[in-house]
């Protein structure tokens, strides 16, 4: 049965109205969902700032922990965090990039590579405490590195290694095949291609992944506690520069340490209210550190994106 023209028109209009209604519903749901996350984050940050901001000062950053909340500071904690992160970066970047390049450029597609790939993807989801246990067994008890900065840094390096590998592979995959073919056509070997094309073009993506990995590592507590980072440290590690030959000292690698999250955790569990404020202030510093690192990652990505054109 043929419908008359006006009838058809109203039906179409009705349908459009219904579709538009659902469109709106989804829009509002989406907006609300976004807001829930944002409002929560904002409340959290506002709360942290209100509590911690009055405690932030130059003295807070340059004092050692103390039993008097108003004298306590985070010097040993942020220096510890920084040095641990340095070790983490030095260990995870070369290993992760090399592994990523191998898997992407060299490895043949077979069942072994598949297994490795699945495992790396799985490793990224392993709870961090498990890495702590691994590091405890391997670095503390087997290699006898002790409860040191070196152990802490390597534990976190293991933790972020899968992230670095994945980021490297993603970045390499984004390079068009024509670039490789052009390079081979000019007679370059595989290593020459990787060295002068693949690595430079993927640097932006790799660095972004590395920095995001590191900013996760800086907030990690569980593996660091497991390998035996201590709570009360009122001294700095040995200086890396010495007056005697060979002038550079790596003794700090074996020094005991504490990190920001552990210091915060200790303060939170104290009875005095003032220590909670210290923890909030330390939280602000930690958050600023993370934000800065993420900012650097965004900037690097932006710069490399602009430079490369194909």
């Amino acid at each position, binding site marked *: 049965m043929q419908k008359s023209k006006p009838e058809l028109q109203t039906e179409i209009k009705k349908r459009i109205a219904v579709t538009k209604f659902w469109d709106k519903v989804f829009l509002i749901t989406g907006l609300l969902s976004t807001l829930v996350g944002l409002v929560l984050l904002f409340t959290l940050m506002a709360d942290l700032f209100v509590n911690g901001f009055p405690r932030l000062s130059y003295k807070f950053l340059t004092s050692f*922990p103390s039993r008097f909340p108003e004298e306590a500071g985070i010097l040993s904690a942020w220096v510890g965090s920084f040095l641990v992160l340095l070790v983490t970066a030095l260990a995870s970047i070369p290993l992760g990039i090399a592994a990523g390049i191998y898997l992407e450029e060299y490895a043949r597609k077979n069942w072994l590579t598949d297994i490795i790939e699945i495992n790396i993807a799985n490793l990224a989801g392993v709870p961090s405490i498990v890495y702590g246990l691994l590091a405890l067994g391997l670095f503390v008890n087997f290699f006898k590195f002790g409860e040191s900065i070196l152990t802490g840094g390597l534990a976190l390096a293991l933790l972020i290694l899968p992230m670095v590998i994945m980021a490297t592979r993603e970045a390499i995959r984004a390079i068009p095949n024509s670039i490789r073919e052009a390079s081979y056509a000019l007679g370059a070997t595989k290593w020459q291609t990787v060295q002068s094309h693949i690595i430079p073009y993927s640097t932006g993506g790799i660095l972004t992944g590395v920095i995001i990995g590191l900013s996760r590592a800086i907030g990690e507590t569980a593996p660091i506690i497991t390998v035996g980072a201590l*709570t009360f440290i009122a*001294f700095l590690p040995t200086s890396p520069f010495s007056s005697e030959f060979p002038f550079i000292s790596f003794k700090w690698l074996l020094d005991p340490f504490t990190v920001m999250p552990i210091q915060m955790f200790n303060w939170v569990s104290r*009875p005095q209210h003032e220590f909670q404020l210290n923890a909030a202030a330390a939280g602000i510093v930690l958050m600023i550190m993370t934000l800065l690192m993420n900012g650097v990652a965004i900037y690097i990505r932006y710069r490399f994106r602009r430079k490369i054109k194909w």
Partner: protein
Amino acid sequence: MFKKIVLGVAVLVVVIFMNITISKADDKLIRIDGSSTVYPITEAVAEEFQKAKRGAVKVTVGISGTGGGFKKFCRGGTDISDASRPILKKEIDVCKQQGIEYIELPVAYDGLAVLINPKNTWIKSLTVADLKKMWEPAAQGKVKKWNDVRPEWPDAKLKLFGPGADSGTFDYFTEAIVGKSKSSRGDFTASEDDNVLVQGISGDKNALGYFGLAYYEENKKRLKVVPIVNPATNKEVIPSMQTVMDGTYAPLSRPLFIYVSKKSASEKPEVKEFVEYYLRNAAKLSAQVKYVPLPVNAYKLAQQRYSKMKTGSMFGGEEKVGMKIEELLKLEEKK
């Protein structure tokens, strides 16, 4: 370019290893770990000691718990172990196996306070028997309401809060109240973080919990402390610095200890100096962090024990309730 990088890395590795191999000996480092209850005192001493030595000696203090601390200590991983209870039989055995000898030194008292909500009007005091009825393993699932403990108390849900099973406080409370260490009902809100317990008790009219006196001192406004009837004198006693020190607040007060490795004390002069400093200043510093100092005489006896390097435990691997440190030290002296 590439060769230069390889060369650079090689040099770096060589320098690192040179450093690592020659470095270990010349460090003046004192490693301490153990009970989180003793931690504030040891932290205070470490802070003052490092200030006095102008950074010539480094002291690290960890909080692995009394049991965790002894594990490291008996492996030779630490010089001093903080403990909120005497060393246990099995820990003594492990230490013996590893050839670790130790000197046991009491440093302060701690009272365990039983706390209720300020709105709780029905409790005037509690006896050990009341507490046992609430906390013993047999109470699990049976003693659920206040009138299950004493019929005159209200018909309201009994909500219990206490420290977790890894804590020395839990060990001591169960020993003193139930009669057997670690023997407790399991259906209570347990937390290693005392602030959680404070929150829980201050937010619920029907709550009851226990933790160290120092935490109560900081939260006096939000909690009400319960006087405990001393079984020996039948008198109600409120926990305070005074009643813990003179021993009338019983059985819920306990001594805190440090265990010093004999090897460290005799081979590392800085450890010896630190412990002497500890015993000299423990009275002042423990009071500052809201613990109860031992009587002056007890510190003197402890110093004597230390200078004689008397090893072993005064308790023979058992937890004892209600002993006075001074008497024990004197007893040891006569042997």
